[in-house]
């Protein structure tokens, strides 16, 4: 019941708006915007490749979640890693880094302005100095219309997170791109 209420209250008054328009480039240098997230769920994680341990651990968990969800529901969730370190995380650096985690992982970077803008839209702390600890380490789950659905914290196990995601997908009454 709580899950259904979340999905319904997402469009209600007073709910913080998380997400929105953005324009970035992926690990192949291709333009990627919020429009490209439509049609499937998005599991979004903010981090940077020079992260000491939290980001690699969370990315491994994400890979696990994606595999479990794929078995149950097919390719309906895009795992997306948005970097907050535009000075160091270029497309080529992201490409090499993400290959070690999961083939489906999309890495997004951009200019300082573009990254600042997407972090602001997602309420993620963004700081320019390269060695600063990541401000956030939660995963943000969006439904195919682009609305914020759920935050999945670090304390979630892979199994629990996958279950939460699968349950949201099960509740979804709209169209879902399974390709």
């Amino acid at each position, binding site marked *: 019941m*709580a899950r259904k*209420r*979340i999905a*319904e*209250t997402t*469009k*209600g*008054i*007073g709910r913080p708006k998380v997400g929105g328009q953005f324009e970035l480039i992926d690990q192949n240098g291709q333009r990627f915007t919020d429009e490209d997230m439509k049609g499937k769920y998005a599991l979004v994680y903010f981090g940077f*490749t*020079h992260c*000491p*341990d939290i980001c*690699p651990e969370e990315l491994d968990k994400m890979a696990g979640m994606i595999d479990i969800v794929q078995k149950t529901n097919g390719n309906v969730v895009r795992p997306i890693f948005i970097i907050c370190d535009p000075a*160091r*995380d*270029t*497309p*080529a*650096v992201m*490409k*090499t*880094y993400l290959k*070690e985690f999961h083939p489906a992982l999309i890495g997004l970077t951009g200019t300082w302005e573009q990254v600042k803008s997407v972090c602001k839209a997602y309420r993620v702390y963004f700081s320019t100095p*390269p*060695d600063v*600890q990541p401000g956030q380490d*939660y995963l943000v789950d969006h439904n195919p219309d682009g609305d*914020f*659905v*759920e*935050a*999945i*914290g670090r*304390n979630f196990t892979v199994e629990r997170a996958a279950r939460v995601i699968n349950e949201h997908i099960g509740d979804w009454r709209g169209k879902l791109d399974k390709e």
Partner: protein
Amino acid sequence: MGWLSSSPAVDAAPAAPKASADGAFEAPDRNARAHCWEARDAYFHCLDRNAIIDSVKAASLAEERCGKEDVQFKTNCASSWVQYFKKRRVVEYQRDQTLKKLEAEGAQKMDGALPGGAPASPPAAR
């Protein structure tokens, strides 16, 4: 007869960062991270054995007791990571101490789920 090498101390230091296709430096890969974490853990176990939490504040004692492990730590990890891990050790210790104190005072542990797991107000009408 072969030698079983298990300690990171006998491995060569990881190679210097390579440049990627577009010029920026590659991030440490899985292997490099594993080496770093092993070296960190070896250093921290030494600190544990010597009852040192803050290796920065207690620098001379840490150097005296765990200098060798610290060298391996610094060889296998970026200096920003070394600083980060040393600081975080202190922060985590303080947090654990606070939690212990609260539990002793009868506080109840809460599930650390983030907001979004339960709505604070009734659903809006559609």
